[in-house]
Every structure is written in C-alpha cells, then in structure tokens.
C-alpha cells in the first residue's frame, strides 16, 4: 500500500480504472483496480448501484489493485458510504490505502444543505409584484427627474457649477463621433422612403410627390426617431455601463461621502451634452435623409434635381422643423436620463452592469416610441 501516491492530477493514466463486485451471502465486496483518477475514462457505476439496492448487510471496499487515485475515488467511496448509511448497511474500509482511509475517516458527515424554497407562484402575486414594481419605478423616475431639475436650476444660477470639461468630452462623443453612423442611417432611410413611396405614387403618375413624402416624414418623424434610437444604443448604453461600473467600484459612494451630488457631477454633464447635440444631429440627419431621397428621385425615378428640391421646399413648413427639433430635445433628455438613472441603480456585480446596459437601451427605445406617439396624438391631423 505504501506505493500509492498522494492524490494529484499530475500522473499519467497507465491502467484504466475498473470495478469488480463479489457477493457472498449478505456481504458485498467491491474491488477497485487500476488508476482511479479523473483523467482516466470512468467505468459505469450502474452495477454497483444495483448491487447496493439488492439488500446486502455489509459492504467491504478493497483497493489493493489501485495504482493511483485522486479525489474522484474519494468521492465515489463517500457516495457508497452515504448509500450504506441510508440503507443501514455496514460499511468497511479496512483494506483501503492508509492515506485514502485516513481522508475518508476525516471527512465529516457532510450533507447538501437544503435548497432555498422556490418563490411562491400565482397570477395575483405576479400581478401584485408587477404593480409594485411599476409604482416604485414611477416614483424613482419622478424623484430622479426632480433631482435633475434641481441640479439644472442650480447650473442656470451658477453656470460654473456644471463640469464643463466633462460636458465637452461627452459632446464630442455624442456629436462629431456619431456623424458617420447617423449620416449613413439617415441617407439610407431617405433612399428607402423614396423608393417605397415611388412604388405607390407611380401608379397615379405622381412621382414628384416623393419629395414631399421624404421631406415631411424625415423632418417631422424619421429624423428625430432614427437619431434618438442610434444614440440610445450608442450613448445611452455607454452612460449606463459607465455609471454602473462606477457604482460597482464604489466611486459613486465616494462622491456621496464627500458631499457631492452624483446627479450634479455625473448626470448633468451628460444630460446637457446630449440635449445640446441631439438637435444638431437631427438637422444633419434631415439633410442627409433628403439627399438620400433625392438620390433615388433623380437617379432612379428620373426627376429633375431642381424640381425635387423645389417640391421639398414647398412641402416643408417651419412648424415641421420645430416639431422635429422639439422632439429631439425631449428624446435627448429621456435617453440621457434613462441611461444615467439605470446605471446609478445597477446591482454591484458584472451581471448588474450588463443588465443595466440592456435595460437602459430597451427603456430608452420604449420611451422614444411612446413620446413620439404622444406628439403624434397632440399634433393636428
């Protein structure tokens, strides 16, 4: 027995592990042979389980044939010992290697702790919990909006209270750094609108009205919505992830203990930066979208460029632009606010950061669509 090695995963497998059962009257002898290490292909344990179930009064384990072993053999012996205890069968280990026997004897009676009971289910309970969650969410949103309004009022009184360097940095990220993606999406949206509109209008010989369709749809609806959705994914998610990580690493706690308001320090610069940049991006997106529509109108439908531009100019009113820009300001405030609020209330874990980021994007898009619908319902038909 002295040549049996101390358990480790170091050894190579020289003989696969095997299990032999011998039954004499009420006694079951289990012979272990070969290398009982996890790296070796494991033998099936069904025969052992069945033998234990067939009413024996004593189980005797023999490991003379074991060359090497690790804790997988110890775990198997513990399993057999547990089964024996449950069935009131005597368990003998006299012939086990001394080190293995010692470890087995030193392992106390260990049992799996009871799993926590599952949450009680039920329609009323789920509905109640959902309602409480909605009310809590609404309260938090209201409270957060109030804090933001308070901080904004302070900045209006004392402009130096805003952290301008950080604000400029966020402006750079929201504005110039987003031009490429916003431009591409707007141009393609213009192309698609023009193409789909032309397919219908051609039936009435009214292709020229593609210009009206593209101009009005982009400036009033599609421009602000597309830019807001792009920024919700690009910037809102970044706000949530950044603030959630700061929350996890106790940076937000440090701000609070120094008496600094996280809203003043972290939220306001982002809110101001995005609210300043979004209308400019919407104007840029409108222009690129109209250019996309014109590209289809001139290139595919054969309209004259001057006719397209003049029709667009005729169709658009200042009110359309005002509505589009007003929407963009509301969308910007919503996307920044939701991103920051979700980040600040994130759970302090890697999973919490991920959940906050996803949640911020989903909530922002929902907010954009709902607010757009409200704008639509309020405007004249």
């Amino acid at each position, binding site marked *: 027995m002295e040549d049996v090695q*101390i*358990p*480790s*995963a*170091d050894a190579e497998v020289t003989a696969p592990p095997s299990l032999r059962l011998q039954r004499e009257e009420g006694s079951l002898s289990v012979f272990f042979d070969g290398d009982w*290490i*996890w*790296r070796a*292909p*494991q033998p099936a*344990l069904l025969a052992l389980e069945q033998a234990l179930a067939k009413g024996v009064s004593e189980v005797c384990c023999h490991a003379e044939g074991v060359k090497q072993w*690790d*804790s*997988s053999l*110890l*775990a*198997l012996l*513990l*399993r057999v010992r*547990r089964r024996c205890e449950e069935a009131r069968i005597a368990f003998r280990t006299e012939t086990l290697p001394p080190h293995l026997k010692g*470890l087995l004897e*030193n*392992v*106390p009676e*260990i*049992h*799996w*702790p009871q*799993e*926590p009971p599952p949450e009680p289910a039920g329609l009323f309970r789920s509905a109640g919990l959902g309602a409480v969650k909605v009310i809590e969410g609404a309260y938090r949103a209201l409270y957060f909006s109030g804090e933001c309004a308070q901080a904004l009022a302070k900045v209006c009184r004392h402009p130096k209270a805003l952290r301008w360097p950080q604000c400029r940095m966020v402006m750079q990220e929201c504005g110039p750094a987003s031009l490429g993606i916003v431009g591409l999406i707007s141009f393609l949206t213009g192309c698609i609108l023009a193409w789909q509109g032309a397919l219908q209008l051609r039936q009435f010989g009214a292709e020229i009205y593609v210009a009206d369709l593209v101009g009005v749809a982009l400036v009033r609806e599609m421009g602000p919505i597309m830019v807001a959705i792009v920024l919700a994914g690009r910037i809102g998610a970044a706000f949530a992830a950044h603030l959630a990580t700061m929350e996890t690493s106790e940076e937000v706690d440090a701000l609070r203990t120094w008496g600094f308001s996280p809203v003043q320090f972290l939220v306001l610069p982002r809110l101001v930066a995005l609210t300043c940049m979004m209308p400019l991006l919407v104007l840029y997106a409108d222009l690129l979208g109209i250019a996309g529509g014109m590209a289809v109108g001139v290139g595919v439908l054969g309209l004259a460029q001057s006719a397209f531009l003049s029709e667009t100019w005729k169709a658009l009113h200042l009110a359309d632009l005002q509505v589009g820009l007003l929407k963009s300001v509301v969308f910007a405030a919503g996307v920044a606010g939701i991103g920051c609020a979700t980040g600040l209330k994130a*759970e*302090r*874990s*890697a*999973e919490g950061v991920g959940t906050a980021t996803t949640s911020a994007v989903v909530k922002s898009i929902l907010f954009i669509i709902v607010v757009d619908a409200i704008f639509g319902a309020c405007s004249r038909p």
Partner: protein
Amino acid sequence: MKAEETNAIVVRNLDCGYEQKALLRGLNFEVREGEIFVIMGESGCGKSTLLKHLIGLNPPLAGEVVFLGRDFSRACGAERDEIQKRFGVLYQGGALWSSLTVAENVALPLIEHTGLDKEIIREMVLLKLAQVRMDSYAHFFPSELSGGMKKRAGLARAMALDPKVLFFDEPSAGLDPPSSRELDDLMKSVRDTLGTTLVVVTHELSSIYAIADRAMMLTKESQGIVEIGKPAEMAKESPHEAVRHFLNRMPRGDPGARTKYETN
C-alpha cells in the same frame, strides 16, 4: 525520487512586464514540490506581474517557465490546456462567477474537464466545499458571501481538479485577522493532507511567517530577486537591508534595522 529533490516550477532567465517594458529582469528560481513558497515584496515591485507570468496570463518577455518538467511558456494548444489543468489559482477577490452558485462554481471545471458521473461530481463538489468549510453555503450566490467566504469558495474551486500546484494572489487582502489566520491554516492543511505545492504572493508579514517554507524577496530597485530563504532566518541574518527592513516591519532607510534584530 524524493519530493525534496523534485521541482514543481523552474524559472529561468525570466523577464516580466507588459508590452516589452520589463518590470523584473533575469529571474531564476525553483519551487520545490510540496513546499509553500512565498513571493514577497513592497507594493509595485512586480509580485502580481510575476504571478501572471507563472500562470500563463502574460507571455514572458524573455526566458522560460518550466511547469512539472514541461515548458509552459512555449506550450500551446492541447499541451497548454493540459498543463493548465494541473494548477489552480485563487485570485485576490475570489473571482467567483457571479451568475452561478458556490456549488456550481466548483462543479463547472469538473463538468467541463472530466468524464465523471454526475453523482460523483456532486459528491466531489460537496467534498471540496467541506474541505474549506463552505458546504453550508453551497446554494449561495457570490454576492451573498463575505470576503473571507468568497476566498474559501474560490479555494474550493481552485482545488476542484486536484491540482499539483495552487497559486494564491494576496490571499489575506481585505480579510480581518481571524479570517486571515483561518485561511493560512487552511492553506497549510491543503499542503499537509494533499501534498499540493503552494505559491503565494503576499506582503502580509503574519502570513509569511505562519505559512512560508521559503520566501523570495523582490524589490523595485533591483528589478529582480534580492534573496530566497526561510523568512525567520532572513529577518535576522539577511545581508540585504531591504529584506531586513521588510521582514522586521521597519520604515525604509531606518538605521535601527540591524540593531533591532541583533538585540532580539
């Protein structure tokens, strides 16, 4: 061959650092099988960087790390995977996977790397958790555990595959003295019962004196090893002032360092 004559890790002419900027140069040392080897030194001297090179997270800038007779620094593919299964690492904060329970954390390496029966894996998980006295917390998530519990659970996970060598990165960091002492006792018991080699990166003097068979001192100034030896002897007899100051918990440049150990 006797255990004292074999080396678990051999480091030859190792340069450690990031992006070709070497923090430590020309390291040469061996870790013997079954010993507790402590890597110590002041903050910023490169202890954790060296650990990252030893466990293969960072490739060496130069030199080699030989792990159980195999060149780990140049191994790749299946050979590298095979070597990696022979050591376990306990990270500073435990590094438990937050979406899994403690039991699932320990079970994952067993499920992924072994062909063991589910029931045996269950038994092994319970066994490993019992070894670190965490079996009552098997169904807890890491966020529900204290710092000391996270480290014990991390140790159970590191031991899941019966590794030959266990690495510890600052095991006492963030622990209260009794928890730190418990972890020290646990580390010694792992070595004594399982014969595992332990490599511990720490600057906690109480832990160093309690667990180290041998210790290696690194300094920022020398960019390398100053001395290797038994901590108690080094504290008294080291010819290097930095080693004596460190092990006697004295401010740097304190002229009383020699006087203090001489009078002890």
